[in-house]
Every structure is written in structure tokens, then in C-alpha cells.
């Protein structure tokens, strides 16, 4: 039964991904992407990583989609939506790349014996008195993530914080309005040349 569920979910997810790629209207493409993100969250639940599913919904659907919607709304082409059509020159290239990469990956997955042998997932007894650390981790993943983040992955955690700070400051500096910058510079220091910011 769970196999039928997985097949239905995966087929729906691939259809949503195709909708994201081929939708003419950009807002429709973003909504297809939301559905795809949700299907990925369902896959994480099937893989018994429910923490990851919650993070997926929170960050991807909650933040990344909103940023993409901002980008779509702020860069609306006034003449029409001709920039969203698929150009004929790249259509064959795109289909060729899709076929090649998908075939190579599927053949490679099929040929590797240690992966095809893993038809049954290893049973970690997920009970309260589970002895294996992985079983305990699956049972209570959120405290485990917090503990791992602070002990084993603390360097990566700090680097990720640094990266997020840099991205935040960079995005704010990039998207600042140029005219107000020049106006403010002129108002504060009359007689000096305003510094060239942005483009």
C-alpha cells in the first residue's frame, strides 16, 4: 500500500516540476513550485525525517517562495509576458539534456548492486527504549539536531550564520534605490560629488 502511495506522490511531484518548467505565467510557475516543495516534504515524511519536512515547508514554502514572488512582482514586464515563452533554439537542447541526464542517472542507479539490494530499509527499532543511537535520533530528531549543531557541526553552523549575514547585507545593499542615495548624499554634503552607488 505504501508503494502505491509513493508512486502516486512521485508522479504528482514530477508533474508539478514539469508545470514549474513549462508554465507561461510566472505566478503559475511559482505555485507549481510550491506544490513541488510540498511533495518533497511528503517524501521526507516517508523517509522518517519529519523535522526535515517541517523545515522544508517553513523555509522553502514560507520564505523562498515569498522572495520569488517579490522578484516576480517587481520585475513585471509591462509590454507583455514574452520573456516567459520557451525559445525554440533551446527547446531541443533542453529536451536533449533532460533525456541524457535522466537516462545516465537511471542506468547508473540500476547498475549499482549495493543500492538495488537495499529494497528493505534497515529497521531501527523506534521505541522509547531504543538502544541504537540512530533509532533514538529518528524518534526525537529536533533535540538531536540541536545537539549535533552545537557539538559536531558547530563550525558549519557558524559558517552558515556568516553566509546568511553576508547574503542579508549584500541583498539589502544590492536592492537599495539609487536615486534616494544620491539625493541623500547631495542633501548632506552640498558641494561634494555624490559617490556612485549601484549601477
Amino acid at each position, binding site marked *: *500500500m*505504501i*508503494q502505491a502511495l*509513493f*508512486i502516486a506522490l*512521485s508522479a504528482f511531484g*514530477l508533474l508539478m*516540476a514539469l508545470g*514549474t*518548467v513549462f508554465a507561461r505565467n*510566472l505566478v503559475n*510557475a*511559482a505555485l507549481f513550485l510550491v506544490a*513541488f516543495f510540498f511533495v*518533497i516534504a511528503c*517524501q*521526507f515524511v516517508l523517509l522518517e*525525517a519529519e523535522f*526535515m519536512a517541517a*523545515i*522544508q515547508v517553513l*523555509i*522553502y514554502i514560507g520564505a*523562498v517562495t515569498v522572495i*520569488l514572488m*517579490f*522578484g*516576480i512582482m517587481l*520585475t513585471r*514586464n*509591462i509590454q507583455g509576458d514574452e*520573456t*516567459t515563452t520557451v*525559445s525554440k533554439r533551446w527547446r531541443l*537542447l533542453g529536451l536533449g539534456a*533532460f*533525456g541524457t541526464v535522466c537516462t545516465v*542517472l*537511471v542506468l547508473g542507479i540500476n547498475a549499482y548492486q*549495493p543500492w*538495488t539490494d*537495499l*529494497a528493505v*530499509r*534497515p529497521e531501527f527499532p523506534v521505541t522509547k527504549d531504543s538502544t541504537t*543511537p*540512530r533509532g*533514538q535520533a529518528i524518534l526525537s530528531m529536533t533535540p538531536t*539536531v540541536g545537539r*549535533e*549543531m552545537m557539538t*559536531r*557541526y558547530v563550525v*558549519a553552523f557558524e559558517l552558515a550564520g556568516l553566509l546568511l549575514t553576508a*547574503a542579508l547585507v549584500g*541583498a*539589502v545593499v*544590492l*536592492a537599495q534605490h539609487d536615486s534616494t542615495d544620491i539625493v541623500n548624499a547631495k542633501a548632506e554634503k552640498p558641494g561634494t560629488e555624490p559617490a556612485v552607488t*549601484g549601477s
Partner: protein
Amino acid sequence: MSQQIPLTWFLYFAAASFSIGLMGVLMRRNAIGVLMAIEIMLNAANVNFVAFWRYGPTPASEGPISGVMMALFVVTVAAAEVAVGVGLILLCYRRWRAADVDELDSLSG
């Protein structure tokens, strides 16, 4: 639940999603559309990480949830990349009045 999902089924789904995202990166003319296709590819890689963590033997020195931590950091980097990417696209839109990747072909002016 006598029958379980084999590992390769998750890998097939991730491979197909990755290929669809790759097709979107090549075929989309709008820059935001390209960003959306990149997100599809990143999510496919995330599914791969968590699937290999759940099914396969992981080294004990990496901790009990190594795959989930990797996927978490991928989510973080992807979110930061989308923010910076949209900022850049807004700048390009201010310059060319269209978010068309075919127009973005010079670094100066």
C-alpha cells in the same frame, strides 16, 4: 506494511526531478524562472541525501543524523542564494526593464 519502498525508487524520483530542473535551467528565458528550476535541482539533491542517510550505513564518526544535517545546510545555502539572486535580478531589471537572461550578456554597464 509488509512491502516497503526500495531505496532505488527514491533515487529515481530524485534523478527525474534533477533532470526536469536541468531542463528548466536551459529552457527558461526569465531569470526568476531559472532560479525556480535551480530550486528544483537543489530539492532533488536533498531527497538523495536523506534517502541515503535512511537506507545506507553511515559512518559512526559523522553522527546519527548526518544526512539530515547535510540537507539542512543545503536548505540554508539555497535560501541565501535565492535572496541574493533576486536582488541581482532586481538590479538588472532596473537597468534593462526586463528580467530576460538573454539580455544579461555584459559585465560593464
